[in-house]
């Protein structure tokens, strides 16, 4: 059984100009969603998702058909997101830095308290962007795995293939990710 992706990739390699947009249509929502959840920002998510497809086009010759196309494209997207998060971390002013001229006061004190009242916590789902806030609290290496597992519904094997990490590592990170979120969310 040949998948739709495999057929499309064959057509792209043969030079069929109509096949690539079909492949983009097939994956654009998945890739945009992953990028959006990784970055928590619509504009950056769109840029990264666009870049993902450009890389797919440029590197299609290197794609190994023995692996699922979906895991390959997820790998490109998550790597681009992690690179961007790393760059962002380097350029952003650290919140832990003490404010000049104000002993003992750091930038955390200047931010509005993001925690919601207990009544809001009873509300499920996306209310007040709680899911995004919880995901943002994880470090990128846990974030990517939790997103792929629970938002994109990939199996542990698929995640292991996508991130090129042994399945034992994936399991350990999922366990720690669940524990961290439970603590964060007070569940």
């Amino acid at each position: 059984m040949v998948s739709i992706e495999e057929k499309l990739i064959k057509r792209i390699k043969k030079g069929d100009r109509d096949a690539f947009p079909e492949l983009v249509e097939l994956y654009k929502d998945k890739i945009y969603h992953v990028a959006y959840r990784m970055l928590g920002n619509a504009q950056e998510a769109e840029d990264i998702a666009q870049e993902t497809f450009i890389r797919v086009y440029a590197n299609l010759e290197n794609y190994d058909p023995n692996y699922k196309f979906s895991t390959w494209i997820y790998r490109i997207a998550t790597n681009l997101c992690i690179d961007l998060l790393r760059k962002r971390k380097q350029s952003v002013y650290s919140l832990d830095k003490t404010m000049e001229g104000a002993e003992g006061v750091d930038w955390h004190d200047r931010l509005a308290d993001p925690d919601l009242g207990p009544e809001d916590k009873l509300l499920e789902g996306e209310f007040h962007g709680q899911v995004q806030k919880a995901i943002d609290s994880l470090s990128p290496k846990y974030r990517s795995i939790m997103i792929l597992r629970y938002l994109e519904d990939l199996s542990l094997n698929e995640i292991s293939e996508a991130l090129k990490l042994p399945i034992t590592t994936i399991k350990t990170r999922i366990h720690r990710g669940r524990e961290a979120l439970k603590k964060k969310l007070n569940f």
Partner: protein
Amino acid sequence: MNCHQANELIHSYLDEDLTEHEQSELKQHLCQCVDCRTHFHGLRQVIVFLQSASHVYAPENFTEKVMAQLPKDTMLQVWKKRLHRHPLLVAASLFILLMAGSSYSLWADDKQFLLTTPGPEHLQINSDKNIVIVPVNQTVAGDIVIRNGDIKVEGTVEGNVVAIDGHIYLASTGHITGEKEEISQAVEWVWYNLKQTVMNLTY
């Protein structure tokens, strides 16, 4: 089973990674231990919470924007792709192109001056300038064909005048009873040679 071991099993259970035996062992522990039960429910809530995330969709014109950013194919790539898709067609067109080129050079080499006429005695022939003159008061009965040269008709030709790769000049005193035709032979020559080559290949 202690609580630490139970926690390991809880995570394996959430990963759908437990044998039936392990499952029943875990169940037994959870029935007895309130702390582990609370912990287990908390972790399950985390999963449900994450799964409740609404799906976001790619913005409008996403695909068009991607396509606009793709590198344009160079001429070489275009031909490579065509070769990949239609190898026979490309080979055939290349063959025709080369054949046409060689036929044309054959034709271009063949610049000999030729004259066919029923009455050469009536004509003035200047082979240096490749020009034939039908003088005034002279009459040629029949067709004149000239190749790679010009013809100037001052007298009368009772027939057709054909100049292949040449010009026909008709003076005011001149008269041609038949057709007057100038042919550029390059195209026909190439076509003829191609036909000959293909015939030779097929038989």
